């Protein structure tokens, strides 16, 4: 029986592999230019997927079908594009820019995971990011130091999160409504202060920006050194902090007693309460942490990247972070991968538009469609923490 399951699984996996191969052969370094190649290889993948499906391996079989189909399309499309264009699009710089796009999303997504794992839905991530973006600039101009900018971002992100926490934990207001109001409030407050304080605009030279780490030693590594240097050599300090935040989020949530408490409060608050865990305390802590992390993501946008603030500059990134949380099934590692995927989508959109004339707007819809597909259960069900969004009433 087990052998049979294994063999059907491997059939499905082979189908996926053929699908990927169909696309990959059309890309550098192979760059095969014959329409028959992706079609034939893709058809093999389709066949294997169908076979796996027929033997009851629904998930992998479906995957294989999808991959093979996309592989054919992708392969044919890539063949229609000039060889040099592909080389211009797929560069090491693309990976670096993927990381830059993913950083604010990853910070906010980690924040979202903290909050939602503790049972408080946080659609206010967007507002908390925006607050962080503004107060980072404000603190940085006021003190002349980016460190103060980051601290101010975290402080005000935490304050906004506290409002959300108070309304959703103590007042038991609907958490979605409260999060929604948080977004509105942040938009109004940051816009108001921005217009009031910087009516003549912000001079980027006045803003102390988060430094970039130049890792020149990477270049000296033989073989892949140049590539590594192009990807990791010139990233903002905040990108590295983001890696740290992802690691810490995983560590705290799954390797410490505190994390166990956060998760238990989010899964079954009554049980947690019974064993003496302060449900309210843990939730306040988690939501506040979430605000600080989201604010750091916003700070990356303002003082880590462009060096200024503009009204509503987060423009929906908080919602993409939320999407990444769901896409990543409320797990730090998977959510981080999701932000990388979304970041890659955004990073790819620019050179695709420039080199291949594919609409940046069209590519921008993919993260959202992917998330729709994910929540619809096509890529395995995405199940939230059991008590997510439920206020807890002490007894």
């Amino acid at each position, binding site marked *: 029986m087990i052998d049979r399951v294994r063999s059907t699984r491997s059939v499905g996996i082979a189908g996926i592999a053929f699908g990927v191969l169909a696309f990959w052969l059309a890309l550098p370094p192979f760059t095969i230019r014959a329409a028959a190649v992706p079609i034939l290889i893709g058809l093999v993948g389709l066949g294997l997927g169908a076979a796996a499906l027929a033997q009851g391996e629904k998930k992998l079989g479906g995957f294989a079908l999808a991959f093979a189909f996309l592989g054919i399309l992708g392969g044919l499309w890539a063949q229609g594009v000039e060889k040099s264009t592909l080389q211009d699009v797929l560069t090491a710089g693309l990976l670096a820019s993927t990381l830059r796009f993913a950083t604010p999303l990853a910070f906010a997504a980690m924040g979202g995971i903290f909050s939602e794992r503790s049972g408080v839905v946080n659609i206010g991530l967007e507002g908390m990011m925006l607050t962080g973006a503004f107060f980072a600039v404000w603190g940085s101009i006021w003190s002349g130091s980016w460190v103060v900018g980051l601290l101010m971002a975290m402080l005000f992100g935490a304050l906004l999160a506290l409002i959300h926490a108070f309304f959703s934990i103590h007042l*038991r207001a609907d958490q979605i409504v409260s999060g929604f109001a948080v977004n509105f409030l942040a938009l109004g407050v940051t816009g108001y202060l921005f217009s009031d304080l910087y009516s003549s605009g912000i001079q980027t030279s006045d803003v102390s920006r988060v430094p970039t780490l130049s890792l020149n030693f990477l270049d000296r590594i033989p073989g892949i050194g140049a590539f590594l240097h192009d990807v990791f050599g010139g990233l903002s300090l905040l990108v590295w902090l983001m890696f740290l935040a992802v690691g810490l989020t995983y560590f705290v949530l799954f390797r410490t007693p505190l994390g166990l408490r956060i998760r238990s409060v989010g899964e079954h608050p009554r049980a947690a309460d019974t064993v003496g865990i302060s449900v309210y305390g843990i939730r306040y802590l988690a939501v506040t942490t979430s605000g600080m992390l989201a604010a750091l993501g916003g700070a990356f946008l303002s003082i880590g990247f462009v060096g200024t603030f503009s009204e509503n500059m987060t423009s929906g990134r908080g919602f993409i972070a939320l999407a990444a949380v769901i896409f990543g099934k409320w797990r730090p590692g998977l959510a981080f991968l999701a932000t990388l995927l979304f970041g890659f989508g955004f990073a790819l959109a620019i050179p695709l538009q420039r080199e291949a004339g594919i609409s940046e707007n069209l590519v921008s819809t993919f993260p*959202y469609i992917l998330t*729709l597909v994910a929540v619809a259960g096509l890529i395995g069900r995405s199940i939230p923490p059991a008590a997510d969004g439920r206020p807890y009433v002490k007894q």
Partner: protein
Amino acid sequence: MSEATPSEPPPEAGLPRFTGIFYERVGGALVPLAATVLAFLIGGLVVLITGHNPVTAYRAIFNGTGFNWLFPWVTGDERRIAAKDLQETLRVTTPLILTALAVAFAFRAGLFNIGGQGQYWVGFMTALFVGTHLAGLPRPLHVLLGLAAGIFGGMVWGGIAGFLRATSGAHEVITTIMLNWVAIFGGQYLYELGGPLQGSNASLPRSDVIDASAKLWVWWGTFPGLHVGIFIAIAALVVYTLILNRTTLGFGLRAVGFNPDAAAYSGIPVRRSYFLALAIAGGFAGIAGAIDVLGFKYAVDTSDFGSGIAFTGIAVALLGRNKPVGIFFAALLFAGLQVGTSSRNLDPAIFPPELASDLSTMIQALVIFFVAADVLIIYIWRLRRHLKLRQPLKEEPARP
């Protein structure tokens, strides 16, 4: 998601079904009124702290709304300007009522439709398509077709979320947020330079202007004037009430909203209700988009997609507590705020308009917070009633 653990808090407090609380009639219009007054007071405080005079600022905003047209002592030029402002306010009120209905209708079935934005834009674009692609039709027919296309587009967009909720249980808050962005970026793609629906001017990221036969009738004032959309919105308020209170469908939806398990037990198709609730809700938002394009926008530019009219619609629904009359007045209030703080209507010498528009966003946020927090008041009130009910029960055995 419906399999709640037995020891959970009252189910109406949970995310999928927080409905019950919102329909308590406690306080009636009093709580929203108090929330509004409180929000304006705090907004005034912010104005004061940042060194402006709140009274003159609010008066200037009020005069910018055109509501002063209603005062008989406003005459001459002032009255003409007021009429023009009021026309604009009512023009903004129209989509606010309809997008608020999109939220309220789904609310009654226990669903939170954040997707008004996407549904609005899809309705806008389908109506625009009909308006630009069916030249030569007689006017009433072209207008009706445009409106119908808008409803259809909105229904499809809302229906996707409803379908996903019904079939896979995907939470509508998430799916509608995602669908919003798909509609916004998708719309920008359609009309961008080289986009598939870009207008005949190849250098502009704009659609064509709709045919004259598809334009809504203007009944008050000259260009741009006030189109008949406001009557459609008022009719929609009536339709909303009728569907919910006078039809089997509405009865089923409300039953599902109150308690999906009980509704299912009594034979109401819960999944079908979810789908229909979101599809019809989408229809309301869709016709809002259709009215905007057929009424005064006439075309779309890719930069238009940033407008957050439907997000304000959510605030309207919350403040209006999903009641037709409440939604009407809440929409008037928020439309007035938006028009009164626009740079065209507010004298920068009295209060900077760029501050004022952010101030109105802030006030909206505060209103939502206070309306949401009234749950606390209701909760205490209900607890008290529960306690009162319990006491005589305890005493009962003692009676002879």
